[in-house]
């Protein structure tokens, strides 16, 4: 009897264990790619089956292997790579650190004493998600370490870091952590008589999946998060008083933030110096310290607007946690979207500011104030409530940055080359100071804004970045001639109402150089004949007259709607409206976007409340594939295609096959089974091998701030944490952009990755963007250039620059599935432009769609965005992924494939596709074949082909952990069955005995 109970108990316990093991194994197998990357395990191996000796099969990254060593499993080689990455990160920080204010205190050369204040000095931000060096041999450089290294431990007073700030923790994205000044004063004896310079570090933070707060409760008082908190004000007041009494010889403020802090208070606290250090990664503070000490001359410039009031831009009305809007009938919307969760259909924003994002708002309104038109001086949108004043609203404009020397930039001439459709702006740059340094030649444009534009709602920024170059280091007295090439295309405007395409407006054009965008605009105004008498000021409100000699102008007699009628990247594709269906007007809602022709009447002072219509709800649900597929009259049948044909071509042969060679691509894809094509369609931080065609496994990582998924093959360590993307942008140096792309590509190669989901192309629409540190700038053209050079250098190594999150995924608050309404002009000129650079100029072969919606349609099911623009106008041949997951609104796999998605990130579900094909949907099979072509094209232009020859075989390797789990499941099953069988047998035996007795 006891034996029976033991067996029965064992059977039940084993059943539970087996169920748990099966569930866990299912999850682990579904995420095998991530686990394999974590464990540094490859799932394929290359075997040579013929005579290919002597054949060089390193098609990509040869120069990397020549420099750092071909053996990626060598720890010495990996260390060489990371040392080079660390050195480049320091160089990026040196050129990306911006001196915003300098009353002569900088450079602060070694010799004097420094006292460090501010909680962020001890608890700064280094990088998104990484606050320590991941490479053991390369220690992290903290801010205080960097200061001690430059000034010497004996000269840097870190009393507060070791006492008050110890254990205080970091400022979060909705709470500023700073010590009460009373705590600081308790340690006053430490610095009271040292005649030191007070260095104060202040931090603000943004993070994935939520925005920085706009307003915070600061001890019962509501304050701007981007402004100063009471403890910070008290600290600065204390330092100001200390400076006045001679306790400090100066005050230096360091900003540890890529969120655009309000900095209009510097003079109020008698601050001598303000340095924008941004988010410098685990090595970058060394570069920041080098700039402060003068070991390196400052040459960084802002790539965002630093408004005095972070809430003064028109974009604020629909942004962030606070101002993202709810549909008035949200319950109806939720009920109408059964496949989406509630929070994925609740919200919308309207980019009501149109093209007037960042500096384009402040500068355009400034020009109209100076020119006395369009009601620009109205109090609407003014911080003070009085007439709008640029000087009151602005702290530091876009492009601003100081040097320790002075430069004179002289416009020598502008030439237009019709063959290349480019302007070349020639500028002589002379170092007129007494220190060597680098100068940035910034070229801005103004294009005509007249009756046609007003009538057709074509908005024009008074000044727009057109191009730039940075000099090499110029010795004192040295002159260099800099040539800045500018594509005329960047001067075209998108006209969605009249021409329904790009136009070159009729009227006067200006190309101006300037120290920043505001300076360039003042030069344009000078060319137009305006002076300080008309109210022209610099950013601080001082009267200025501008310099007309720094402006080149010409007139275009007629409006030109033809030049860019067809795509620059594929002449056969017409460029025309693609986002009409995403406009509020398409849903019968009359909404007026901000226009400079009526500042007071169209400034979005309050949010417009939308009641979602039935059509909106249908688009939000987004299940349209079946109806669409059924409506296709010429859809092929499944039988029209051959799958699983005999293999005659290996994967490596594709590397030189032209995209247009349909016959060869079709023949190759005919070899693949549906299951093999789906291997490429899903993602698990990579793709499994297809050994029948000798295609190895692929691995992908995330992202440009630091490779987070994937580790160095040699050591298993994560790669180093980089300076933020914005810091790279702030170098304004195309060599640095290329160097970043190159070094991250090198790291990817040594991590075994052939794609990085990167950065990337979204816009700093407001100071509150949770991922501002990952995105290039507030300006699409700046992003166009940064992405171009980064992508180009990374792609050269055979690593895909998978720029994300395409497109208009500019805010993290309610980022998942946020309905985003914007004019087609702003979509094209601002929000797509930062993607256009890496995709079209940099040759990127990867891109990731965002989580958001354009209008009401989820971007990954948006055929106009993905197929018509990306793969049509931009002629993109690489592969496109969704952002992560398959839940809710992301579950419409067929709609995604129809729209142009080639693979689905962190998603291994394929039932929708296999079921459709099994049910005879030839169109679905046709789409799968097209996605496969994109996946194969991208992979065959990457390091995935390295090591392969026509004689290569690829064998699939099942990792040990998977084998172990499978064996464990089998063993448990056998034991469970044995226990059940034993128990049944004993029962039967017992019954027979009883029957026998009877």
């Amino acid at each position, binding site marked *: *009897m*006891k034996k*029976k*109970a*033991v067996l*029965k*108990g064992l*059977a*039940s*316990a084993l*059943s*539970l264990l*087996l*169920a*748990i093991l*099966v*569930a866990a194994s*299912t*999850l682990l197998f579904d995420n095998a790619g991530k686990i394999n990357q974590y464990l540094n395990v490859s799932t394929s191996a290359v075997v040579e089956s013929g005579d290919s000796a002597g054949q060089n099969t390193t098609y990509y990254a040869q120069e990397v292997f020549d420099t750092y060593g071909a053996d990626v499993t060598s720890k010495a080689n990996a260390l060489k790579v990371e040392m080079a990455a660390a050195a480049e990160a320091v160089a990026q920080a040196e050129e990306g650190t911006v001196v915003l204010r300098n009353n002569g205190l900088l450079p602060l050369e070694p010799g004097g004493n420094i006292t460090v204040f501010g909680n962020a000095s001890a608890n700064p931000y280094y990088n998104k998600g990484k606050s320590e060096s991941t490479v053991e041999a390369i220690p992290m450089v903290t801010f205080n370490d960097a200061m001690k290294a430059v000034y010497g431990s004996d000269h840097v007073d870190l009393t507060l870091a070791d006492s008050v700030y110890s254990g205080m923790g970091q400022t979060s994205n909705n709470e500023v952590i700073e010590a009460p000044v009373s705590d600081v004063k308790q340690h006053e004896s430490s610095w009271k008589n040292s005649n030191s310079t007070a260095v104060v570090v202040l931090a603000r933070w943004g993070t*994935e*999946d939520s925005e920085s707060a706009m307003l915070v409760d600061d001890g019962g008082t509501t304050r701007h998060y981007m402004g100063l908190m009471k403890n910070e004000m008290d600290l600065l007041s204390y330092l100001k008083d200390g400076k006045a009494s001679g306790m400090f010889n100066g005050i230096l403020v360091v900003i540890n933030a890529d969120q655009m802090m309000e900095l209009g208070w510097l003079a109020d606290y008698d601050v001598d110096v303000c340095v924008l250090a941004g988010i410098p990664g685990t090595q970058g503070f060394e570069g920041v310290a080098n700039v402060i000490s003068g070991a390196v001359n400052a040459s960084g410039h802002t790539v965002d607007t630093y408004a005095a009031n972070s809430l003064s831009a028109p974009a604020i009305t629909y942004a962030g946690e606070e101002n993202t809007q709810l549909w008035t009938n949200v319950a109806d919307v939720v009920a109408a979207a059964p496949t*989406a*969760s*509630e*929070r*994925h259909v609740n919200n919308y924003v309207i980019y009501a500011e149109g093209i007037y994002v960042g500096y384009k708002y402040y500068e355009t309104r400034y020009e109209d104030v100076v020119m006395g038109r369009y009601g620009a001086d109205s109090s609407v949108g003014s911080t003070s409530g009085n007439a709008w004043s640029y000087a009151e609203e602005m702290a530091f404009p876009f492009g601003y940055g100081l040097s320790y020397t002075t430069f004179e930039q002289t416009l020598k001439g502008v030439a237009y080359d019709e063959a290349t459709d480019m302007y070349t702006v020639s500028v002589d740059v002379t170092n007129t100071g007494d220190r060597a340094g680098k100068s940035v030649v910034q070229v801005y444009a103004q294009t005509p804004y007249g009756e046609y534009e007003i009538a057709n709602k074509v908005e024009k920024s008074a000044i727009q970045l057109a191009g730039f170059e940075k000099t090499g280091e110029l010795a004192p007295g040295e002159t260099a001639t800099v040539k800045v090439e500018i594509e005329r295309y960047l001067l075209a405007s998108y006209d969605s109402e009249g021409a329904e395409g790009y136009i070159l407006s009729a009227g006067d054009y200006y190309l101006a150089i300037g120290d920043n965008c505001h300076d360039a605009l003042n030069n344009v105004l000078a060319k137009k004949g305006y002076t300080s008498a008309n109210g022209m000021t610099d950013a601080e409100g001082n009267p200025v007259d501008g310099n007309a000699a720094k402006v080149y102008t010409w007139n275009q007699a007629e409006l030109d709607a033809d030049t860019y009628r067809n795509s620059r990247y594929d002449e056969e594709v017409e460029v025309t409206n693609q986002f009409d269906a995403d406009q509020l007007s398409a849903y019968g809602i009359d909404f007026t976007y901000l226009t400079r022709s009526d500042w007071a009447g169209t400034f979005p002072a309050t949010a417009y409340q939308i009641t979602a219509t039935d059509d909106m709800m249908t688009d939000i649900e987004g299940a349209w594939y079946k109806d669409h597929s059924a409506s296709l009259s010429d859809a092929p049948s499944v039988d029209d295609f051959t799958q699983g044909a005999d293999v005659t071509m290996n994967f490596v042969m594709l590397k030189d096959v032209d995209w247009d060679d349909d016959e060869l691509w079709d023949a190759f894809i005919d070899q693949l089974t549906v299951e093999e094509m789906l291997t490429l369609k899903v993602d698990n931080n990579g793709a499994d091998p297809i050994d029948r065609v000798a295609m190895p496994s692929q691995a992908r990582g995330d992202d440009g701030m630091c490779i987070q998924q994937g580790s160095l093959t040699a050591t298993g360590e994560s790669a180093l944490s980089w300076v933020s993307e914005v810091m790279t942008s702030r170098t304004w140096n195309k060599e640095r952009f290329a160097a970043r792309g190159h070094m991250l590509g090198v790291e990817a190669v040594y991590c075994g990755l052939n794609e990085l989901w990167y950065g990337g192309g979204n816009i700093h629409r407001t100071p509150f963007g949770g991922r501002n540190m990952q995105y290039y700038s507030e300006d699409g053209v700046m992003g166009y250039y940064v992405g171009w050079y980064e992508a180009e250098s990374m792609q050269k190594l055979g690593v895909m620059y998978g720029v994300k999150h395409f497109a208009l995924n500019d805010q993290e608050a309610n*980022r*998942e599935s946020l309905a985003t309404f914007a004019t087609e002009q702003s979509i094209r000129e601002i929000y797509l432009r930062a993607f256009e650079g890496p995709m079209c100029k940099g040759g990127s072969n990867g891109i990731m769609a965002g*989580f958001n919606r354009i209008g009401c349609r989820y971007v990954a099911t948006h055929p106009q965005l993905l197929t018509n623009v990306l793969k049509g106008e931009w002629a993109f041949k690489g592969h496109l992924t969704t*952002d*992560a*997951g398959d*839940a*809710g*609104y*992301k579950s419409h796999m067929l709609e995604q494939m129809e729209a142009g998605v080639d693979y689905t990130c962190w998603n291994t579900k394929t039932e929708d596709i296999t079921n459709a094909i099994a049910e005879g949907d030839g169109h679905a099979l046709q789409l799968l074949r097209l996605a496969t072509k994109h996946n194969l094209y991208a992979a065959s232009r990457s390091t995935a082909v390295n090591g392969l020859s026509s004689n290569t075989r690829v064998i699939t390797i099942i990792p040990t952990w998977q084998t172990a789990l499978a064996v464990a499941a089998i063993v448990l099953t056998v034991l469970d069955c044995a226990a*059940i069988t034993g*128990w049944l047998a004993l*029962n039967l035996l017992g019954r027979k005995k009883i029957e026998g007795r009877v």
Partner: protein
Amino acid sequence: MNALKDKIKNAGWARRLSALTAVISLVALIAYCIYGVVFNYFDTVVCAFLVGTLALSGVHFYLGLGALNLLGAMCTSGAIALFFLNSFPVWADELNGITMYASRGGLPPVIAILVLMFGCALLQIASCFIPAKEGK
């Protein structure tokens, strides 16, 4: 009620544990149904497993048939495995502090239901280990 009390009083420990399992599985079933409907995670197979647990443990209590608590344990195991698999988006979102798996409801109800299910499973396993001994 008195009959039920007598039944419990006269039953062996194995059947008493089954009675307790039936009660807890009823609570788990109700909790799961509410959770599944409210947060749109309802899975008929999980529900069927829990109904199976309830029915088998209940019948085992009344009739004392030896195979029923083992089958009940298997049903509970299935419910646990499937419910845990289905709850992956919640774990992924909550533990990573993200929303990309579109999870709903958070971890507390998931953990509470899992605790109830594990309670059932452990009671049934214990019940299986106890030699069958009929009451009067």
